[in-house]
Every structure is written in C-alpha cells, then in structure tokens.
C-alpha cells in the first residue's frame, strides 16, 4: 500500500515541495508588504551554498547542532542578499522588477553562488551531515500516513510550523495587520503612524531568510551536496506559487505539494511503465501553465483585490509623491 503510486507521489510531493514552500512563504511576506522580489532564485542559491559550507567546514559538537547552524547561516545569507534589493527598491525607489532580476543574475547560478562554491572548493563532496527522517523507522512503515506524515525530515515539520505562524501573524496580530495595510495602502498606513520603510525592510529581509533556508533544504536534505545551480529554477516556481496561492500561507502549502508531486510524477510513471503521452513535457510545464491560468483568473475583473493581491505590490512609496 505504501508503494502505491498515490502514496509515493504525495510523500515525494511533500519532500520536493518543502523548498518551494519555504521560498514562497518568504516571498509572500515580502509581497504582502508591497515588495516584489524576483531575486528568489539567487537568494536560494546563496543560502544553499553558504548553508552547505557551514555544515562542511564549521565544526560544532553534534550533527544536529551543525545542521541548525547551517540553517541559520543560510537564513542570514539569504537575508543579506535581500538587503541589497531592499536598499535599492525601498530607499532608492528603484524599479523592483529590474532590481530583482539583477539580484538573481548577481547571486545566481552564474554569479556569487558559483563564485563562493568554487572559491571554497565545495563541489563534488557529499554533505557531511544531512537531515534524516525525524521519526523512528517503525512509524514510517505505518500504512499511508507512515511515508507521507512520519517519513519526512525535521525541515518539513519546521515548514508546517512556519505556515501556522505566518497565517496567525497575518490575520491575528497587530504587526501582521499593519503589514497588510502597508502592502495595500502605504499612504494610509503612513498616515496612521506605521513606518512603511521599516515594515518593508523587515519583511523583505525575513523573506530573504526564508529563501536561504529553502536553498539549504536542497543542499542539506533533498540532494545533499553542492552543485552549481542546484535549485534548478525552484525560485521562479516559488514566485508563481505565491500567486497560485492567492497570497495565503495555507494555500502555499497545498500548491507547493502539488507542484512537488508533479516533479516526481514523470520519473515515477516511467519506473512503472505507465505512458500518458509526452509525460516529461506536460508534468514539467504544468506548474507554469497552471500558474498562467491562475494569474488570468486572479486578474479577471478586479478579482485580484478580492483574492488578496496587495494593491501596492511592486510600487515604491514616497511620502511627498503619494
């Protein structure tokens, strides 16, 4: 039963979806404050390489401590990358789209992450510690829930906590409501005495930290080694996912696992000799096609506002010019 196609797909969907989930939660926070950051792919790669570096080269007592430190380093690196974007678009009011793309070029597969990886000789070595399934082996053999719920690494459970925390933060706390105000109507938020600049900086940086952790999910859990461009475009899917999820954390989780399962579908079908047309083409292209469809639905007759697109997304705020 645990080897039936559906169970395997959901279980690997959860595993492959976890970096997408972390990255999209971060992007969601930034976008809710009105900052569109297209640099997710770059931030993820720098997080991936720095997290990996920390686990390989910084020696602390135990494997668990080393991995936790790796995550912290990854988060910090992601936030540092996001700080460049934040300074350019919030303080200098530069174009958010061009700045985000610049960040991906700067930090991405042909940029800083590759520079760091080759400079520190990180390639071609397996990770010295990796995240293992969190629960004991016996629990993983339970029917259905075993592989799906109990066969995952600590990172998966951490991502669930983050979903709950962010959902609670955005709907039930004062600062969370303030963020939404900043993203919807920065002028009104400013008039209420909320610091637009401060909120946007904090959420862009935290968003970068999430992207860094998402990158480390690759190098410390999914494919535990450093390879140039290891994230393979996951950062772009994460950006699509935020829209796919109508800017809601709980729907990010559903979308991330759906997209993750699609990634596992083609090899899984091939292994079972099932032919469903050009499987690789449609399973690979489906997340992107589905996102285009969702974008169209979201934009239909102002539906965006009802469904949660922050009104001020992508625009700079200057008090004198508002």
């Amino acid at each position: 039963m645990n080897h039936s196609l559906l169970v395997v797909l959901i279980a690997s969907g959860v595993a492959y979806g976890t970096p997408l989930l972390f990255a999209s939660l971060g992007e969601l926070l930034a976008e809710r404050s009105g900052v569109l950051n297209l640099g997710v792919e770059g931030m993820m790669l720098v997080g991936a390489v720095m997290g990996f570096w920390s686990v390989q080269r910084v020696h602390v007592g135990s494997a668990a401590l080393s991995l936790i430190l790796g995550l912290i380093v990854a988060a910090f690196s992601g936030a540092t990358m996001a700080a460049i974007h934040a300074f350019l678009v919030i303080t200098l009011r530069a174009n958010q789209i061009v700045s985000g793309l610049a960040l991906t070029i700067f930090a991405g597969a042909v940029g800083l992450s590759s520079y760091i990886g080759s400079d520190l000789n990180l390639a071609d070595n397996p990770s010295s510690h990796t995240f293992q399934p969190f629960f004991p082996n016996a629990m993983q053999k339970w029917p259905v829930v075993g592989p799906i719920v109990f066969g995952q690494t600590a990172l998966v459970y951490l991502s669930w906590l983050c979903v709950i925390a962010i959902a609670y933060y955005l709907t039930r706390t004062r600062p969370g409501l303030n963020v939404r105000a900043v993203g919807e109507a920065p002028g009104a938020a400013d008039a209420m005495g909320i610091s637009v600049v401060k909120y946007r900086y904090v959420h862009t940086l935290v968003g970068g930290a999430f992207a860094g952790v998402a990158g480390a999910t690759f190098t410390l859990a999914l494919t535990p080694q450093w390879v140039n461009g290891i994230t393979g475009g996951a950062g772009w899917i994460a950006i699509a996912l935020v829209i796919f999820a109508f800017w809601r954390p709980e729907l990010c989780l559903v979308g991330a696992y759906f997209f993750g399962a699609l990634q596992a579908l083609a090899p899984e079908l091939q292994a079972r000799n099932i032919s469903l047309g050009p499987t690789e083409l449609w399973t690979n292209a489906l997340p992107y096609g589905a996102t285009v469809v969702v974008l169209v639905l979201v934009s239909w007759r102002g539906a965006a506002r009802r469904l949660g697109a922050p009104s001020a997304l992508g625009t700079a705020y200057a008090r004198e010019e508002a």
Partner: protein
Amino acid sequence: MRLRIERRLDQPRWLAVVVPVLSVAAALAIAAVVLLVTGHNPISNYRKLVDAAFVQTGSIGQTLIAATPLAFTGLAAAAAFRMRLYNIGGEGQLYMGAIFGSGIGLLIGGSGSASPGVIAAMVAAGCIGGALWASIPGVLRAFLGTSEILTSLMLNYVAGYILTFLIFQSQSYWRETKGFNATVFPTGKQLPSNAIWPQWTLHTQGGLPIPLGLFFAVLAGVVLWVLYKRTKFGFEVQVLGDSTGAARYAGVRIRRKILAVMAISGAVAGLGGASQVGDFSHGLDGDPNGLQKQAYGYSGIVVAALGRYNPLAVLLVALLIGGLDNAGNTLQGADFPSGLVGVIQGIILFCALGGEVLVRHRIRVVRPVAATA
C-alpha cells in the same frame, strides 16, 4: 540634519551619459573589493578579462558572436520596458524564434550557397514565432489586465520544455533521426546548406568574422530608434510609459499599444532565435545545457537597463556585456574565479539602478525646521 531624495523637475542631458559610465566604473571597483576580500588579485583578473574579451587574437570575433543574441534580447526588452510593459519573456520568445526559424529552414532549404529567399523566410518565421509567443501575455494583459511580468516569465519555462521535448523526448521534425550518432545522442537536424547564414570576414586581428545576425541586430536597433523617437506611434508609447492617465486623456488607444509593443518586442527576440540557428548552431539546439544555459533573455534585461532603454545605447552595451560573457566562457576553469562574470554583471546592474535614482532625483541635505511659536 537628514538626507532627502526628491524628484528632479528637469533632467540634465549629460547625466544620461555620465551615470551609466560611472555605474560601470563603480561596479568594477566594488567587484575588485570582492576579489580582494576573497584573496584574488583584482588587477591581474581584470587584465585577463579584458584580454579574453577584446585583446587576444580572435577575441573580438568571439565577443561579436556573444553580443549578437544579447543585442536582440536587449532591444526586445528595451522596446517593451520603455512603455513600462515588463516583458521578461525574451528568453522563451527567443526559443520560439529558433524553433520557427529552423523549422522553415529545414522545410524550404536546399543545397547550394546561402539563398536570400530562404534566409528571409527564416527571419520572418523567427519574428512570427517570437511575436506569437509574446502575444499570449500581450493579449492577456490587454484584454484581461493580467500582469505580463509573471505570465511572460512562466512562458519562458514552457518554451524551454517544448524545446527540450522537440529534440530529446520525441521524434519531431526538428530532430535528427538518421545515422549512428543520432541513436547515441539526440541532436537537432542540420540545416540544409542554403539556409545557413553567411558571415563576412574583416581582415584585421587575424580575420574578424561578422555574422549576418549582427547586421540584422544593428538594423533592428536603428529601426526601433526611429520608431520610438521619430514617429507618432513611438511618442504615444513613451507618453504611455510615463503616465497612463495622461495617455488615456490624450486619446491613446492603450489596448492596441500593448498588443503592438508586445508583438514588436517578441518579434525582435524571435529574430534573435532565428539568428542563433542560422548563424551559429545550424540546427535546433534543444540541449538544456546549450542554448537554455546561456540565459540570453535574462541578460538582455541587464543590457536594456544599462542602455537606459535607448535602442542605440543598447547595441553598445550589448558589446560590453557580450565581451564579459565571452571572457567568462574562455576563462572557465583555469585559475579564473567562476561566477565572477555574473557577479560583475549583477553589480553593474545594481549600480545602474542606483545611478538611475540620481538621474531622476536629487539628493538634498535638509536641516530640521525649527518649530516656530
């Protein structure tokens, strides 16, 4: 006392030239610090870079080859961005141009030397392929108001998978199916000889090959410049870019402009794809590690931004960035830090963006106003 950034009422002309030049200089200085901090010698690495890009025998030829696709994608991005239409789908539109261009080349090409008719058909097919692919986000934006930024981006991936599919996962018309090599490693069918674009050789620096595509790129740049600076269409596009409200009051037909500009932008990127096939690869390059690794579409945005969306400046910047790309390719491996080229390109773009602020805004030191009773 604090600093305030406020909008300039008039933008001095000299700033438009000085700021990009200073941006590049500042970027090189910052990248030098990065090199120093990580224990590399910036001067020797920069010398290697310049040597490999512009000085060594044959390097300028390679730089021109690297600059050709960047000129196309840069012009494509500039054409759309000038209207604040963020077509970041140049990448996918380039693939579509390559698919259409090579398709028609395979279909009507034959033996013999380069035929103007076949090449013209490939150019047209490339433009149509790119324009059609760009029109998907264009139509969605014009009629449904869907953000073209993300739809055009998503379609890049779809186009990439289609490209891979045609060569690697199917027995398509584009794929070579005969011969021993074809069974070992999937490749695109070779174009017939009269569909291969000619190149001219200048007899300097040990023979300097100039691909036909480069002429098309320069031609496209000039045409776009005339279109944007000297016609009513271009004027309306620029008004629309500066203020949608003003354009609407002036009676500009916004929907038509969106459709037209997206199609133009896509056509230029698609022409770049046709040039890749006709000039360089001579068959459809579906390898995920080939054309798709080059990310010409994304670099084109850097080129366009640094050229401040002016088509003629874009051509010059394409040479500079093409030189960097070429140097990055030649210097791979051997004691040259990998990724340095991307780092420099990224920092150049950051500096250009920061510099843009100085063009549009002035920074003033403000003293707090003493409260008066």
